Structure formats: structure tokens, C-alpha cells
């Protein structure tokens, strides 16, 4: 009886994870594409030394985001870890997180009238490493130097 309820809860979690996970992902990507178009004029460059003239201000800007893995993605990754290979279920997660982090960084720069962000770097960490039965989450931090030109 125990294992039957376990199976039922597993199937329910999988369905919820798949359904809500894919809806959330689609909406997030739509939002990302829209904002990337809007913030395209805030130039982000990984280069260290700016080649911009007339810099009046420079300061740190950051953009960070935490995205959680859903149950479906996590189970898929667990199966994949048996056989090895690319964890495709996590790839989209990381892609979204990085792009979102950049967008937030750009938004912060824009709020201070900065047009460029130099020395862009990323930090990725996971808040809960997903021990045993808990789903994990991914945090991406993007930071750089914002430049305000006159």
C-alpha cells in the first residue's frame, strides 16, 4: 500500500513539474526576448579596459536571479546521471538564468543613466544543492562596471 501511494505521488509530482515547468519556461523566454530588445542599447562587454571617452561616473552594477528546478527536470537529470551525457533538462535553466541576470544588470545600469557595462563577469552557485529528495535551485550573479558618459 505504501509503495502504491509513493507511486501515485511520484506521478502527480512529475505531471505538475512537467506542466507548470514548461509553462513557466515558455513565459520566461517570452519575457527575456522582449526585454533583450528593449535593453539592447545598454551595451555589455566582458572587456576590462574601457575605450570610452568622457566617462563621468563608474560604479558596480549587479544582476542576480535564483531559479528553481522542477521535479520533472530533476528526475530526468537523475536518470541521465545513470548513463552519462548532457543534462539537457538543466541546460535551458542555466540559459534562462544567465540571460535574466544580464537583463537585470542592464536594468540597474539604465536606472543610473549608464550606457555601458564593462568587465562583465558571472558567478553561478546553487543555494540548496538538492540533497536527497529536495529540488535544487540555481543562482546566477552577473556583475560589472557601469560607465556614465557625458
Amino acid at each position, binding site marked *: 500500500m505504501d509503495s502504491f501511494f509513493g507511486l501515485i505521488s511520484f506521478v502527480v509530482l512529475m505531471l505538475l513539474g*512537467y506542466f507548470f515547468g514548461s509553462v513557466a519556461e515558455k513565459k520566461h523566454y517570452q519575457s527575456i526576448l522582449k526585454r*533583450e530588445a528593449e535593453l*539592447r542599447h*545598454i*551595451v*555589455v562587454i566582458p572587456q576590462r579596459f574601457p575605450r570610452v571617452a568622457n566617462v563621468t561616473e563608474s560604479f558596480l552594477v549587479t544582476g542576480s536571479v535564483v531559479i528553481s528546478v522542477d521535479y520533472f*527536470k530533476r528526475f*530526468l537529470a537523475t536518470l541521465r546521471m545513470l548513463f552519462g551525457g548532457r543534462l*539537457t533538462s538543466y*541546460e535551458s535553466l542555466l540559459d534562462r538564468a544567465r540571460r535574466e541576470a544580464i537583463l537585470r544588470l542592464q536594468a540597474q545600469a539604465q536606472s543610473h543613466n549608464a550606457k555601458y557595462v564593462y568587465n562583465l563577469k558571472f558567478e553561478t552557485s546553487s543555494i540548496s544543492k538538492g540533497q536527497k529528495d529536495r529540488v535544487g535551485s540555481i543562482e546566477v550573479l552577473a556583475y560589472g562596471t557601469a560607465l556614465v558618459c557625458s
Partner: protein
Amino acid sequence: MNERPELLPNENPVIPEGINVSSHHPLRELGLLTAGAIGLFIVLSVVVWSILTFGARYIPMSWETRLSQSIENLLETDLPDSQIQIDLQSRLDRIVQQIDEQNTFQLTAHYIDSDVVNAFATLGGHVFVFSGLLDVIETDVGLDMVLAHEAAHVLNRDPIQAAAGTVGLQLLMALVTGNGDFAQTSGLMNMGSNMLLLSYSREQERAADERALEALKALYEDLTGADELFVFIQNSEGERAFPEFFSSHPNPSARIANIQKAINSD
């Protein structure tokens, strides 16, 4: 130092999609991986079961007896020296004499006062008979058939084989699921009731029936009525009436057929 001035972009470029993300559908990947994992698990289970049941035959009976010492304490036997217990033990001894040529096995009969219609053999040569079964069986040959069948299981080393296979499978499950409770709850040292009621394969059951009939042929002229218990179980609407019987003994109809064939072959 590079003298050429850097070309400063006016805006960020449009990055094409699909480079950092894979395009195949997650459900397809799930199906593929699940099929692979299940296939792998089945193969491993079969291998583990075969190896362990094959090797268990060579475990000495003395080791098995030592393992089973906790069994005697587990099920409280009512009336340990009652006439019924003594009678069952003497029947068992008589039967074992017919099939244990080298006289290597020591079987002990246990009588449990309970309405359950069942009898089973477990590790260490212990044969348990419930009073419910004794109430149902009316003929000598019927009772001896049951006892002989359980005795045959012991002589064929079925209990230790089934126990070894089950432990192996549980270990495999624990490894796959990463469940650390295995050592505490399912170790062989801890004889829960699930270890008593071992389930034997159809092949083992058939072999036990054959050996039982062999013993009965030496003791009885006429084997009519040997299938008494199975006929009763079959007629009493089967699984709903006797779940314990069906968890440890499958398929009464096939067994009735086999017994009838043996009777008619004389």
C-alpha cells in the same frame, strides 16, 4: 599595445537561439531513459537472483539452522507439547525418512493455533502448520501431502535459496534508490515476518509436489484425496478467501492436475 581604436558597438547583438539549449523534447528523452533504466534493472535483477539462488544451495545446513534460531521465538506456539504437535512431528519424521536417504536433515514441526488455512516451510527445517488447515483437512493422505510438500521444500534447500535471492534483490533496490535503511530493516540478522513467508517459484513448487508424491507413494497404496487441500482452496473462491495461502503458494489448479496425473500413472 594595439593602436587601432576599438570598434564600440552601439547596441548588443541579437544572439541566435538554440546554441546553449538543446532542441529535443523532454518527454522523448524521459521515455528513452526510463526504458533504458528499467531494462538495465531487469537484467541486473535476473543476474543477481540467478547467481544467489544457485550459490545458496551450497550453504551448509548447519549455517541455515544457526540463522533460523530466532524463528522459533518469533511465532508463539500454543501448546508446545500438545498431542497435535507430537502427532505432526511423528508424521513429518515418517515422511522425511522416505525421501531423506542420507539422513542429513532435521525437520521440526510447529503447530500454531490460528484460523489461517496455511502451512509453510522456512529456514532451518522449520515447518509451520496452522490449526485452520487442520480443521479443513479430513483425510490422513491429505494432511501428509501438505507435510510432505513442505518437507520437500526443505530437502530441496528452497528456503535458503529464496532467502538469498530476496536479500540480493533488496540490496540491489537499496543501491539503486540510495536507501540507507536496508541495513537496519532488511538484514538477514533481523528476521521479520516477511522472511518467514518466503515465496517459492512455480518450478520449486512443482518439484516439491513431485518429491512429496514420491514419499506418499511409499507410504500409501491409494493416493486418492491427496489434493484435498487444493481442491478445498479452489472451491472456496480462491484468493479472496485465503490470501496467506496465495502469497506463499501459487496456482492450486495446476497442482491438482499434477497430483491427479501422478495418481493415474500408477
